[in-house]
Structure formats: C-alpha cells, structure tokens
C-alpha cells in the first residue's frame, strides 16, 4: 500500500514536472498580455519533432538535441509572435482562440505530412534507461532524470524572474500592463522575449515528453487540454500557481489511472470545474 502510494507520487511528480515545463510559458504570456494562445502545444510539438529528427536521422546524442529543441521552438514562437499575434493583442478572446486554433490545425497537418501519423520512437542513451529498485518498487531512471532536470530549469526560471532586471520588468507587466508602460518599460519587447522563452520551454518539454507520452501529430491538441487546465487552475501569470496546479494534475492523473482506471480522465475534468467554480481566477490568480 505504502509502496504503491510512493510509486504513484513518484510517477505523478515526474508527469507534473513535465506539465509544468509545458505550461509555464503560456501562464506568463497569458497573464501579461491576455493573449489566448491555444497553439502553445504546437510549439512543444515542434521541439519534440526537432529532437526526434536530430536523434534518428542525424544521429545526435540525446542531450545535444535538448538545446536545439529549445532554440527551435523559441525561433518559431518569435516568428509567430511577430507575424500573427502582434496585430491581435487588442482583439477579442474569440479571435485569438480562433487564430491560434488555426495555427494548431496547420501544425498538425504539417507534422502528419512530414512524419506520418504514427508514433515516433526515440532511442534513449543506455544510462537513462532501466530503473532502480527501492522498497520493492521500480523507479525509472528517466523519470528521476526528468524530475531533477525540470527542478533545475524551474529554479533558473524563478531566480531569473525574481532577481534580475528583466524578471522585474516581466512581473511589473503581468501585474499592471498600463502602469508598466507608463514607467517606460517596453512591454511589447519584454513580451516578445517572454514569449520566446515560454515557447522554448514548451519545446524543451515536448522533447522530454516523448519517452513518457509518445509523439504524434495529435500531440498539439491532446496536451493542450492539460496545459489549459494547469494554467487556468493555477491562475494566470502565477509561476507558483502553475507549479502547484501541474503537480496536482500530474499526481491526480497517475492516482486516477492506478486506483480508478475505469473512470479515466473524468476525474480531472471534474476537479478542474470544481476548482474554477470555487475560484474563477484559479488557485493563485489575482483577477
């Protein structure tokens, strides 16, 4: 009983870390510009496909592909932001949702055209495979690595936002965009950089996710729902909230799959609706 609980917590924690990487960028950009970017998971998919292509076709080592996944997704998000998002900052939620759903559609079709619709396999290096046996339970090496790696990234992210000038500008823009503009902060510029960072993190998350959840063109839609749940439950623009919500979702998802396999995702949607009924702005949201 205890060991199975430990296993669930471990798996859920690893999954939650992944969700955190995937959604933190969306949370910050949504909080800052109120831009409903439903194409966020398409960026994660871009990262995933970059990693797979470099590994399977060019024979790169796994760790070398991760920075490329980050940079590639960040580059794509800069292009998207400049070309398509900028004219729509003041548009309605509906227009923003539709535009970004359109981008998701295009990305799915493009991925299907280039890579086919089957799930792509990845070859992890040997030292990331296998598992340790503790208390009669298996702890996958890759999941351990995932937790450690994501923790490092999160610490870097949080300290950047807390202790640097750029981070202060981001926080100011999230708290009160008009006031930040009034103080001479180039909110659009800060937003563009944040957007690229968030997209890059999503790309990184996409690359790291392949071994856990697989990669096929439907990724952009399938994980969008999870990311949106994390963002709305955590509260827009709140990094701590996003972290808590991601852990909550990751752990309850793996617990649900273990204890009530017949209920499926039902529980998660129910919890999300209940939390939003209780706190419409999310657990840690201000608005």
């Amino acid at each position, binding site marked *: 009983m205890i060991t199975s609980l430990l296993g669930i917590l471990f798996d859920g924690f690893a999954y939650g870390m992944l969700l955190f990487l995937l959604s933190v960028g969306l949370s910050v950009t949504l909080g800052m510009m109120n831009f409903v970017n439903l194409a966020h998971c398409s960026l994660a998919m871009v990262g995933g496909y970059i990693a797979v292509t470099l590994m399977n076709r060019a024979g790169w080592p796994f760790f070398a592909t991760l920075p490329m996944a980050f940079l590639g997704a960040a580059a794509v998000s800069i292009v998207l932001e400049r070309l398509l998002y900028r004219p729509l900052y003041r548009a309605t939620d509906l227009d923003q949702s539709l535009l970004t*759903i*359109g981008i998701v559609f295009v990305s799915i*079709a493009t991925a299907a055209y280039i890579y086919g*619709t089957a799930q792509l396999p990845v070859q992890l290096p040997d030292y990331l495979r296998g598992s340790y046996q503790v208390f009669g339970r298996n702890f996958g090496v890759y999941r351990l690595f995932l937790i450690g790696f994501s923790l490092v990234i999160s610490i870097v992210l949080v300290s950047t936002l807390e202790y640097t000038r750029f981070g202060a500008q981001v926080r100011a823009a999230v708290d009160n965009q008009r006031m930040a503009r009034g103080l001479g902060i180039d909110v659009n510029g800060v937003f563009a950089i944040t957007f690229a960072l968030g997209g890059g993190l999503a790309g990184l998350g996409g690359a790291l996710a392949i071994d856990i959840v697989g990669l096929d063109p439907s990724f952009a839609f399938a994980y969008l*729902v999870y990311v949106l749940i994390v963002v*709305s439950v955590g509260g827009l623009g709140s990094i701590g909230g996003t972290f808590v919500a991601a852990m909550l979702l990751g752990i309850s998802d793996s617990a649900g799959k273990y204890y009530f396999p017949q209920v499926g995702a039902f529980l998660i949607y129910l919890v999300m609706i209940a939390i939003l*009924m209780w706190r419409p702005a999310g657990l840690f949201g201000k608005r």
Partner: protein
Amino acid sequence: MAVMSSAVTNPHQFLQAQNRWHWIEVAFWLATLLPFVLTPSYLSLASQIAITALFALSLDLILGYAGIVSLGHAAFFGFGAYTAGLISKWGWGEPLSGLLIAAFSAAVLGYLMSFIIARFRHLTLIMMTLGLGLLLFEVANKASWLTGGADGLQGVHMWPLLGMFRFDLYGYTAYTYALIVLFLLFLLSRRLTNSPFGLALRGIRENLTRMRAIGATSRSHIRTVYTISAAIAGVAGGLLTQTTETVSLGVVDFQRSADVLVILVLGGAGRLYGGLIGAIIFMVARDQFSGINPQYWYFPIGVLLIAVVMFLPNGILGGLARLVASWRSRSQ
C-alpha cells in the same frame, strides 16, 4: 455585428425593419430546394449540411448574439444524438416525437449548465465550456453499456416519417426532413433575435457593465438563450442520429465543437445566415478534399481560419456586407 444605422433611432422601427424579409433571404431559401433537382445523388450530403447548419445556428445564438464563446457545444449535439438513438433502440422509432424528446433532454442539460456558464466570462468561460464538453465525452466513452462506447451505438432503427415516408438510401426523405426542421428553427431564431430579447442579448455581448448599469438583467437572459441554443443543438444531433441510424462517439468529441466554431466564424457570427453559409462551404469542401487525402484536411481549414481572423473579422458575410456598403456609398 449588425450595424445600426443612425437614421433609425426608435428601437421599434429598428426591429420592424430587421423583421422584414429581404429578397436575398427568399432567394436563399428557394435555392436550398435546388439539390432535389440539380444534384439528386448528393442528397445525403445535403442533409448532413442542413444538420450542420442547424448546429451552427444554435451556436450563433449564444456566440454571435450573447457573446458566449463555447469550446464544448458538441455536448448538446451529442446529448441529443444519443437520446434520439437510445429511444429508438429501446423500441420507439417514431422520428418526430423522438426529435422532441431529444430537444427537451438537451434543453434540460443546457438549463442546468447555464447556471455555471452565466457566472463566468473570458478565459474561465472558455475553460468551463471546454471542461463540461470533455466531461460529457468521457461519460459517453466510459458508459459503454449504455452508449456502446468507442464502437458506437448499434441497433438504431427509425420508423417511416409520419408513417408514410421511409428513410431511403438516397437521402430524399432525410434532406426534406432536415431542411424543414432547419427552416422552422431558423424562423424561430430569427424571430427571437429580432425581438427586444435579442436586442438585450446584443447589449450583453457589447458591454455587460453598461447593461447592468441601465438595470437590465444579464444572467437570466444568458440562461434563457443558452437553454434555447442547447435545445436546437440537441435537435441537430437527433436529426443526425435519425437520418444516419447510427451514433458514434464523434457526435460529442472536441473536434465537433471546434468544427462548428470554425463553420460559424467562417460564415460570419451574429447574422444567423453565417452558420448556414459556413456549413455549406465547410461540408462541400470536406467532401471534396476527403476524396483526395483525409489526413491533410486540417491544413486548408487552418489557413482559412487564420486568413478569416486576420483579414475578414466578421467572416464571409461580414466581408460581403462591407463590400455592398462601400459600393452603395460610392454610387450615391
């Protein structure tokens, strides 16, 4: 978004002017009869288009008029579809009463959900509609003893319409049936949106705070229109079940919610005909493209969506209206 001309200041005059039938509308409805003569081999597709148009019409009532963005409207479509299917499976295959029951059950579901919906705006609202839609999908998926789950509902059999017209292979009855239901519910929606209630909804869409400031109720209006919209979506779902005699999980999935949103926005939200035009274009295009390469179907739709949002903010009908307006002002 309907432009209120500055010449009309009296709201009664405005509503009366809106209520008058334009010759283009008459021509449009006459043109819906053309498939019987011109493309008799495509009548099943035509009935699918009519059903999709009805579904888009139901979304237009809440999105185009009350400004409620829904990413889960397939919940009501699917609820109506499963209700109609189950009634028939349990031995009552009479279409008209089955359709009424489907409408009623979807309306009840919509009324219950409207208490949640009316409380929220913006992203939380989108997440709520999405969450409720996904919830219903999971229920339909997991309750396979009732719905057949991923295999679909088997054993749906419809009796002849009015005891006289069998649902034939060519879709002759199906299209006639779907078209008549679409027309009747369109008349209802048209009357509804051109009433003081419709004006109040537009007020809610444009500025909720000001509506409250002038003492108008907003939540009860939202609840009412949401229930009506759910009922119409349920009718559309019931029609699909009755004309195809199967129910698959696809009636309630996210894809259907997204598709109907695309259709409505493509045609132009907030003008009733937008959903109808969008449904014709979308369904005909899908029929054509799917013959070539089904899995790339997303690409043109995605590009179209991006283009509509960037260049045609009010959809095809909005663009046409602007064109006509500029042409008129030039000729004067």
